[in-house]
């Protein structure tokens, strides 16, 4: 069996579109191109039917009602609408009243698409608490409870982390928020479609998801907005034609939405078997690497992690040269959006992983078409690359000679 190189193992950054998704989308580019907002002719009705159908498919994947689904351009937009929209709607005081407009709880290892809107709100007069998870990366109900204030209006905690795959206590945090009448948003980009989700039993008010992480197209996503018990209201960011119940004006991306719907339907059908298969493959990589190398660490909680994603740090090798040595395998070091810079990952630093290890970590994320051959190849290649780089590494020599590398004071120039 010959392997095709390079091997794609960066499914947490994006996934290929499932061919069944593409097939479902195609008619909507050409024959069925109508604007769902056109109420007076069959072209418009056709578009509307397609969007309705997709809304049902998305809702069904997360246990929601279809009226609770807002189509967006992806998780970044969903997060912005949810976080800024809820903060502005539920504020305790207006801007310029000389007191905090309200309190928001989030965590330091969120995606930038949550952190940056929170920072914006901070500038605009809200107080924000950034929780720090322990070394396992999990945010617990108790941590959120400890940060709650009388003026807390919004909690936003991601379901599964995109760099380490760690799963926080989402249903428990949701229950807490409902007890305290606080709005609860979760960025579920890396969770939905891969694990069972029910916005009612999981106590979610607002949930962000994105098509291109679940074998759908890029540039389309959804925001779930709870309509009952409690009914969540939001101040819209984008105004215009009043589409999507006024939460998100703009002509709908019908092709993308059809693709997202189909992707959700496929995920629902294949989730269980896919999860077991991916978990076995992930464990295979981890076991191989951990058994053949010393000074390695699988980051994050040992069990509360997504089946398809692992993040491993290697002592005494440098991250960029590790990527170079494993270039036939498309992986990420740190997160996809920041790996162009030489900064170690803020997520790993947030877990308290030292700079030395945070600098040399690989995020490997498997997907629907990852094969066992690919996994074996990748695991062998990584072990080989780390050995090669350690042969080159003065730090590994010192480590073997029993010198504590962290205590050396380097001669600066």
């Amino acid at each position, binding site marked *: 069996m010959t392997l095709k190189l390079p091997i794609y193992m960066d499914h947490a950054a994006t996934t290929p579109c499932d061919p069944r998704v593409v097939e479902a989308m195609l008619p909507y580019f050409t024959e069925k191109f109508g604007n769902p907002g056109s109420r007076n002719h069959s072209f418009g009705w056709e578009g509307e039917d397609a969007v309705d159908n997709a809304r049902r498919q998305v809702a069904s994947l997360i246990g929601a009602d279809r009226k609770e689904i807002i189509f967006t351009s992806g998780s970044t937009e969903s997060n912005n609408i949810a976080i800024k929209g809820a903060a502005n709607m539920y504020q305790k005081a207006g801007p310029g009243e000389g007191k905090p407009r309200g309190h928001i709880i989030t965590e330091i290892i969120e995606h930038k698409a949550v952190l940056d809107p929170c920072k914006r709100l901070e500038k605009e007069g809200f107080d924000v608490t950034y929780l720090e998870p322990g070394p396992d990366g999990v945010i617990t109900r108790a941590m959120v409870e400890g940060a709650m204030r009388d003026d807390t209006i919004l909690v936003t905690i991601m379901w599964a982390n995109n760099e380490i795959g760690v799963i926080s206590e989402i249903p428990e945090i949701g229950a807490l928020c409902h007890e305290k009448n606080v709005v609860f948003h979760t960025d579920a980009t890396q969770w939905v479609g891969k694990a069972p989700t029910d916005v009612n039993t999981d106590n979610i008010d607002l949930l962000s998801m994105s098509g291109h992480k679940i074998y759908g197209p890029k540039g389309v996503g959804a925001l779930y907005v709870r309509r009952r018990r409690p009914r969540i209201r939001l101040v819209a960011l984008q105004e215009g034609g009043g589409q999507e119940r006024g939460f998100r004006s703009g002509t709908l991306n019908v092709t993308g939405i059809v693709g997202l719907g189909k992707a959700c339907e496929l995920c629902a059908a294949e989730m269980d078997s896919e999860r077991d298969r991916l978990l076995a493959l992930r464990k295979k990589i981890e076991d191989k690497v951990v058994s053949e190398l010393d000074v390695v660490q699988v980051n994050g909680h040992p069990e509360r992690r997504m089946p398809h994603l692992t993040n491993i740090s290697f002592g005494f090798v440098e991250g960029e040269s590790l990527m170079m040595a494993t270039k036939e395998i498309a992986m990420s070091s740190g997160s996809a959006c920041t790996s162009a810079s030489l900064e170690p990952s803020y997520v790993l630093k947030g877990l308290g992983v030292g700079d030395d290890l945070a600098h040399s970590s690989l995020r490997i994320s498997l997907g629907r078409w990852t094969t066992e051959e690919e996994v074996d190849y990748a695991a062998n290649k990584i072990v080989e690359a780390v050995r090669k780089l350690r042969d080159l590494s003065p*730090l590994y020599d*010192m480590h073997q000679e029993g010198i504590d590398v962290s205590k050396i004071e*380097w001669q600066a120039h």
Partner: protein
Amino acid sequence: MAYSDKVIQHYEKPNNVGNFGTTAEVKQRKDVGVGIVGAPECGDVMQLQIKVDDQGNIEDARFKCFGCGSAIASSSLATEWLKGRTVDEGLEIKNTQIVEELSLPPVKIHCSVLAEDAIRAAIADYKKKNGIEN
């Protein structure tokens, strides 16, 4: 990041990897100069060792590097250029020459600076061990 062919060549087949003994051993050897330097920009570390004959000629050089591909290539190139020079000629190697030879992009200039620093540190160590004034 795209690397130049020369960087890739050095990276895949680095020249003169190694050392002339353990940390403790080379400390005792007067014919060996050791430079270990770190790059504050990125936390990378380079170790360069030169072995000098009675005439003050660098007869051999070895390196180890914890760093990016450009740092590995810079140090590999440095050992190549050092061999056969006198100690003082070694000091003439400049990071700009390394940048040019390897076509390093601006963000990778500090990797070549690391190599130049390692050369200077190794030569300084040799001179100090042998009581040679600069």
